[in-house]
């Protein structure tokens, strides 16, 4: 057992922006009473926290080991290592007990924080001190969200010969990636590389797709979850629909197409896009005349398959049992209306990047022609295939991201997709002038910087300096910005403005997190078990997260994470059991285990 007198615990107040949720007084009491550490000091009480002051303290109390306890104590560490070195002690004996490293942020998690301190005190790695409580694991897995992350995770697990349920909210899998035109930096067309995977999912004997369905309730324990799922009424029979499209042809009711980011129209009975999986039609109850008024039913009359369309179908609740759950629910884009000065929703031809993505897509509403926006008879904004072509396009980065007034975080992908969009404009309209307005160009991935250099050589005006506002003058849009590198004030007139909107957690992410018993971080993304060590685990056993729902990321990182999440699942299945999540384990038990392990170590020594 360590001599208590040689160990000091320094309490580190939270750094900038972290709200002080765990009371350091509680930790102090714990350290003094329970761990019997007599030297417990609050860093805030040291007037000048520099190496001299700390080394005086170390010397006068004969300290040989220091534990820094707090939300992010690493920000305090270097002064202590320096001080230890100054007095000739081993700097490696400065240990961190960071509460937020293992998700202890709320007052209610004070016990967990105490356990983290105890582990540092007993010199036992926290993860090893978590008592092992294994539950037998069912071999089935539920993947929530059918975007690229969900597809990848499902395939990975199913290829390991295990049953997977793939739950998807919309009528098709594919997610956001299916909406994109090309993918940076290689410019593969997104559909070309994604659709084979979607087809593979559709054909895989071990994957059961639950499309147009939503999760309603999760009960049970890790390894044996009972999941209630609401299968929304598709009103078209999945097994008999032959996807001929006659129904949509005759359907009288039009609606904005979600898949086209509302830049185009679809019918009330529709297929989200031509390569959808399952390639079957569905009825949008909100717009269907029959569902609303009880009159119409044209689709039923024209459908060549008897009984395929059932306009009176009701939602259906099913229950499945799974051992593991992978959450891959993705993101939504920032609502550009929130920043009025960019004129989204006010001026025609100020579009979001997702809308523009559909506009340049060969399968989009204009067949890939970039055209200016028009209003149809009903006042809906539409893009027509033979519409007027913009002569100049401005792309503004960081809309809603890196902004204290909106999202503080960086959305990670916008710089690159903006460069890609600029390239696509130039490719389709070689005479058009393209302007990019950025703050920092974040071209970080493999081949990204090379891509950036290439785009810069294509004659695109890349301006450092975020545009401040968009106004309309004589039918053109005017962007006012500062070119920071040339120190010029620019007032650039363009025909079209693309807002590079950031990514944000889905509206219902919090609700889903509550249902699953996983936590979210202050920005609303799902919280991983450990930032560096376990970026896909959660505090709930048998539940892993992957893709953008954990934090913004690009496709390769999403895919890698999805596979990593699948790895946890496969490992659990192969072992035959699932560990109880940290969220359900008492701080006291961890503390007890840590003490036990440290004794064992002493004995071994």
């Amino acid at each position, binding site marked *: 057992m360590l001599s208590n007198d040689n160990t000091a615990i320094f309490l580190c107040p939270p750094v900038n922006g972290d709200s002080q949720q765990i009371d350091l007084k509680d930790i102090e009491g714990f350290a003094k009473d329970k761990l019997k550490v007599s030297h417990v000091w609050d860093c805030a009480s040291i007037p000048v926290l520099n190496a001299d002051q700390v080394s005086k303290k170390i010397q006068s109390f004969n300290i040989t080991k220091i534990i820094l306890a707090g939300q992010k104590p690493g920000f305090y560490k270097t002064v202590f290592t320096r001080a230890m070195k100054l007095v000739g002690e081993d700097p490696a004996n400065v240990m961190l007990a960071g509460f937020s490293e293992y998700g202890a942020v709320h007052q209610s998690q004070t016990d967990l924080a105490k356990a983290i301190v105890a582990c540092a005190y007993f010199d036992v790695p926290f993860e090893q001190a978590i008592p092992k409580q294994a539950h037998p694991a069912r071999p089935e897995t539920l993947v929530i969200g059918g975007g690229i992350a969900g597809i990848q995770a499902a395939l990975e697990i199913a290829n390991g010969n295990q049953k997977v349920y793939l739950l998807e909210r919309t009528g098709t899998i594919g997610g956001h990636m299916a909406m994109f035109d090309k993918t940076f930096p290689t410019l593969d067309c997104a559909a070309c590389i994604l659709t084979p995977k979607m087809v593979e999912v559709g054909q895989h004997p071990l994957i059961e797709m639950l499309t147009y369905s939503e999760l309603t309730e999760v009960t049970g324990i890790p390894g044996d979850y009972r999941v209630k799922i609401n299968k929304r009424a598709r009103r078209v029979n999945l097994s008999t629909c032959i996807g001929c499209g006659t129904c949509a042809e005759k359907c009288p009711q039009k609606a904005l197409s979600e898949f086209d980011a509302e830049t185009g129209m679809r019918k009330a009975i529709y297929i989200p896009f031509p390569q959808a999986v399952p390639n079957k039609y569905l009825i949008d109850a909100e717009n269907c005349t029959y569902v609303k008024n009880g009159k119409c039913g044209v689709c039923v009359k024209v459908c060549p398959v008897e009984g395929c369309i059932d306009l009176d179908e009701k939602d259906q609740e099913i229950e499945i049992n799974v051992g593991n759950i992978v959450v891959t629910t993705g993101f939504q884009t920032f609502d550009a209306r929130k920043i009025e*000065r960019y004129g989204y929703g006010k001026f025609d031809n100020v579009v979001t990047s997702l809308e523009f993505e559909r506009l340049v897509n060969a399968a989009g509403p204009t067949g890939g022609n970039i055209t200016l926006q028009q209003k149809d008879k009903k006042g809906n904004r539409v893009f027509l295939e033979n519409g007027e072509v913009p002569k100049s396009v401005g792309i503004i980065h*960081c809309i809603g991201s*890196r*902004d*204290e*007034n909106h999202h503080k975080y960086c959305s990670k992908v916008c710089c690159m997709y903006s460069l890609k969009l600029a390239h696509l404009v130039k490719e389709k309209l070689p005479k058009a002038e393209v302007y990019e307005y950025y*703050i*920092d160009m974040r071209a970080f991935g493999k081949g990204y910087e090379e891509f950036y250099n290439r785009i810069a050589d294509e004659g695109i005006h890349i301006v*450092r*300096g*975020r*545009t*401040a*506002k968009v106004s309309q003058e004589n039918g053109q849009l005017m962007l*006012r*910005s*500062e*070119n*920071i590198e040339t*120190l*010029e*004030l*620019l007032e650039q007139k363009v025909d079209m403005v693309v807002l590079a909107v950031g990514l944000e957690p889905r509206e219902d992410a919090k609700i889903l997190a509550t249902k699953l018993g996983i936590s979210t971080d202050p920005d609303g993304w799902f919280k991983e078990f450990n930032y560096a060590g376990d970026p896909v685990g959660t505090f709930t056993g048998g539940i892993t997260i992957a893709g953008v729902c954990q934090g913004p990321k690009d496709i390769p990182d999403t895919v890698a994470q999805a596979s990593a999440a699948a790895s946890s699942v496969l490992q659990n299945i192969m072992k035959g059991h699932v560990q109880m999540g940290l969220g359900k384990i008492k701080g006291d038990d961890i503390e007890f285990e840590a003490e036990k392990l440290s004794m064992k170590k002493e004995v071994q020594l």
Partner: protein
Amino acid sequence: MSYRVDFTLKHDLKKFGIHDWNECFHCGNCTAICPMTKTGSLFPRKDIRLLQMGLKDKLATNLDPWLCYYCGECTETCPRDANPGELMMSLRRYLTSVYDWTGLSKKFYTSHFWEFGFIFFFFCAVIASFLIWLPLSGNTAELINDQGGVMINNLVAGISGASFVNIIEIGDWTMAILVAGLLISNILHMFYRVVIRDKEVKVPVYAYITEFWSLIWQFMTQSKFSKCEGKTYWVGHLLLMTGYSIMFAVIVVLLPEFQIEEVRPWYNWQRLMGYYATFGILFFLVYVTISRIRKSDWKSKFSHPTDWLFIVMLGLTTITGILVHIFRIGGMVSATYYMYVIHLAVLVPMILVEVPFSKWSHLAYRPFAIYFDRLKEYSRKSQNENKLVRAA
């Protein structure tokens, strides 16, 4: 020419109210949202940059802060909560101290002891100078004129009305000359630092004349203000500026016509001018005080101690002035007298501190800054043209 970055400058400038300089990551939003910016004057970002890097010389010879009217849009839309608008405000304080060759301005901005000491000294000096003369004696009824008002120039015993006005007039002129001298010398100093010392600038003589109209125009109308949003503020500012100028003219140049024994009818020009000036100043004061208390807009969110001092001094001066007027019309002799002394005791230090050394000075600096800026721009343009001609 290369500049040495200086880590300490921003710490030195803290007392001028500068804070939050570090948040800025130079997205350029503030410059682009500001309606007053153009190539060549890219504030506030460029100024934040000079401050962050500690390029003191560049900062001190910079005219940008004067071109900002603090509409607050930059601060409102700043993605980093860096508050560039307030930074410009603080830089104006700093520049005021830079232009002031006496060094008093810096002392007033950075030390309460100096500022309050100075004010207190002149407050006492005015009171004391009245104590030298014996106050009110004899029959107060004699001091009521035909209109029932107090004959203000005869309040001091032993001094005739005419000579009292003379004494005050001499005092006024002395003060005006002193203050104007200080201010003009500061403006000359500013001119020297900003235009003369800038090696890159060569202004042809005729430009001084052709650009002079902008100085006059700006001073009279504060027209640049209207480019910013918030018309009320511009109206307030215009009212204050005109009111103040009128009041200044009335008490210095036209004192014998103003401080007279009879009470003229309300529609008489001198009373109307007085009312207009009082209203203008009062309107502005109320507006500013309310917004500063409510912190309703960006420019009112952060108040340097000197901002409040200015409001309080000007308020006191105005209120005591109004009271003198009321008491006098009401025929309250001793009240008029004491209030008059207090009025002067507040007015004198206020003028001495604020006009050449503090807040008021920007009334002069701002139009001059615009003037100098136009001169510099003129020089830049003509140099560029020369270059082009040569290149051709």
